[in-house]
């Protein structure tokens, strides 16, 4: 009986073409848009690149020239300069060809267009120049004999910081939008899960009424429907990962089979959630769909689909939520595979997803069983 029900569940799913096709088209369309939008953002924005600056000398300042030239000669120079007059400098700033203008009139002052990290770096340079000037002038005033030592100490090239790399993985944090896209496809699996209950509740569809009259045990028909939905959703998840990895060339790291496994489990969690919400009470299909769509989108929002650093905010404010939010669990599992060399955290996420799925299915079955209808 189980295999018979499963066969017809799969056939029904395949014939409900609009949903299946959209579940396939959806990640392909959005994934492509993401790829187009974020193609070069990490290289141009997150990763550090030289800050372009205009310099306007009201009074000639050979020391400043010397300092700026020595910075320019460094291999990873943090700023590059262009000496121009005030009008040209303002033009360059307005057209965003430079990030700021340094005015040299004895002391340095700065004009910027936007607040931000680039402006802060330029401010830091100007502060440094002015403070060094102050230190030298103090030394010249208090102890002229020590002036050479002070100047030498100030101009000594120091490298106070040594880096401790935390990961060998891909640190481009824009990739998390793709993780969250897969998480959203998994959450939309809840719509597939909802169809199980639509087809098994007599008050929701004609097929549901017929199923309730049939001699097949409810447990068997529901388990077959769940298995069928898992297979269909699993296929959609696998297609999504394949498209992102092999067509859009998204770097998921070197453990691709586990990426597929996590995506499949995410799909199962999504379907299970849909099954549970679908089994709840005797609400109309529209109300259940609304609940599922709203919950899915809120989970995806809190997982960082719309605002990139949302997960960091959740880690600070309510870290427990990332352990129960199915969308965060799915995207975190890819993140762990990419960033961590061991499997401890990945396994935590996988186990959490499995536990959530089991809880949803168990609750769904408890709610669905022994449901009787006075008349059909």
């Amino acid at each position, binding site marked *: 009986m189980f295999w018979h029900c499963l066969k017809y569940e799969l056939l029904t799913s395949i014939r409900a073409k*609009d*949903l299946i096709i*959209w579940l396939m088209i*959806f990640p392909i369309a959005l994934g492509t*848009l993401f790829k*187009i*939008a974020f193609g070069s*953002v990490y290289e141009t924005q997150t990763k*550090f690149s030289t800050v372009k600056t205009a310099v306007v000398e009201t009074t000639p300042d050979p020391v400043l020239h010397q300092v700026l030239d020595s910075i320019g000669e460094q291999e990873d120079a*943090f700023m590059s300069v262009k000496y121009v007059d005030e009008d040209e400098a*303002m033009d360059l700033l*307005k057209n965003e060809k430079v990030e700021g203008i340094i005015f040299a009139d004895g002391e340095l*002052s700065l*004009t*910027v*267009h936007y*607040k931000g*990290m680039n*402006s*802060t*770096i330029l401010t*830091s*340079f*100007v*502060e*440094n120049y*002015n*403070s*060094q000037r102050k*230190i030298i002038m103090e030394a010249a005033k208090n102890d002229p004999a020590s002036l050479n030592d*002070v100047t030498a*100490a*100030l101009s*000594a090239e*120091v*490298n*106070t*910081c040594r*880096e*401790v790399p*935390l990961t060998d993985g891909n*640190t481009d*944090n824009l990739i998390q939008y793709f993780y969250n896209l897969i998480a959203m496809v998994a959450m*939309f699996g809840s*719509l597939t899960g909802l169809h199980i209950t639509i087809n098994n509740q007599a008050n929701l569809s004609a097929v549901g009424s017929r199923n309730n009259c049939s001699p097949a045990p409810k447990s068997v028909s529901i388990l077959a429907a769940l298995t069928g939905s898992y297979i269909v959703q699993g296929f959609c998840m696998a297609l999504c990962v394949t498209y992102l990895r092999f067509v859009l060339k998204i770097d998921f790291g070197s453990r691709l089979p586990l990426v597929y496994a996590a995506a499949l489990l995410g799909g199962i969690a999504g379907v299970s959630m849909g099954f549970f919400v679908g089994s709840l009470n005797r609400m*109309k299909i*529209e109300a259940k769909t*609304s609940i599922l*769509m*709203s919950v899915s*989108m*809120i989970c995806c929002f809190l997982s960082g*689909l*719309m605002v990139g*650093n949302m*997960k*960091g*905010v959740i*880690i600070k404010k309510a870290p427990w939520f990332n352990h129960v939010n199915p969308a965060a669990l799915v995207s975190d599992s890819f993140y762990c595979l990419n960033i*961590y060399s061991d499997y401890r955290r990945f396994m935590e996420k996988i186990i959490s997803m499995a536990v959530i799925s089991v809880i949803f299915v168990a609750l769904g079955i408890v709610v669905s069983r022994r449901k009787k209808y006075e008349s059909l």
Partner: protein
Amino acid sequence: MKVFDTFMKVLKTKLFSVMIYVVVFLAISIPMAKNGSAEKKFEKSSLNICVFDNDDTPESHALVEFIGKENEIIPEYTNEDDILDLLYYESVDFALIIDKGYSEKLASGETSDIFRYYKVHDSYSTVYVRQLLDRYVNGVQAYMAGGMELSEAIDHSAEAMSQEVEVSMADFTGKSGNSDFPTSFGAYFRYMPYIMLSTVISALCIVLKAMNRKDIRYRTNCSSMRPNSFTMQIFAGSAVFVLGLWLILMGAGIVMYGGIFRGRVWGAVLNSFLFIIISAAIAVFAANFSPSNTVVNLITQVVSLGMSFLCGIFVPLGMLGSNIEKAARFLPAYWYVKANEMLCGNQAYDAGKVAMCMLVEAGFAVALIMITLVLNHLKFSKASESVAVPVQA
């Protein structure tokens, strides 16, 4: 008003999810709009820095105090995984380790590798903090070279580095200034298209689809109701929903703004009105293809998220490459965002350009409505031919 009543009855089933979207949007927008000021005054970016002070000496405390003057010191996260997560998601900008022996090394003039930091990527923040630490140590060494004791040198170095620098913000936003429309409030209008598209398409499309279901439409067509009356009642129902939603968003905006809008905010109000018309036009257009309810939900996500990412709603336009910007011009949200950026002063204000953006938006709305009318005409004229019953002779 039978059609109008039925329209509202079907709409009621979708109001729950519409309200969830609106409530979540407002809950997120309020703190965003409240933060920040309208003043065009430069402030350095304050970074979130996590410090592991393993030295725990007066010298290391002085350093932490110096860093904390212009940055926020985050409490120690002992778990390395948490640090990695926070650095990856940029909730912590720099994680500094002051190793044991820092004060002795500083006193002996040793400057190489006296700090360590956890690295995830080479960001602007990393470069900035490394520079800051190099300068601090340089300053201490210079004062010590001038004959000062270590503690005295530390105080003087911190003081020399804390002197204010004159930084001015160039204002290219127009003669009248922009104090009426702070950029923080501009963010409220910037995110609005996502909510408009999500709610209007998902709700209106499903209601219109239900009203245009073949059997219902044919029944209405053969009733005594005039087609014009049917169309007008559908239009009235849609208008009530769309205007109601827009008024809720504007009302919430007035509360956040702290009174009636002033100055250029009215431009943003007009801009948002045009965009909600576009959202409605997209919904009417999509409803013509009679997608299932589930597919409507997926279409809604593709259109709203796609447009939001491509047109600078979620990710600022400046971050997207110039080619993306060229492609985004074919989408109405791009013109909405561009007008909003000029109005709130993120881009140089030009009244002519703002008007042009709004005209393009209006053009999109008109074009969508025209295409929908043509499709509608073709669909129902064909349908009436196919169901016409031949009269028996």
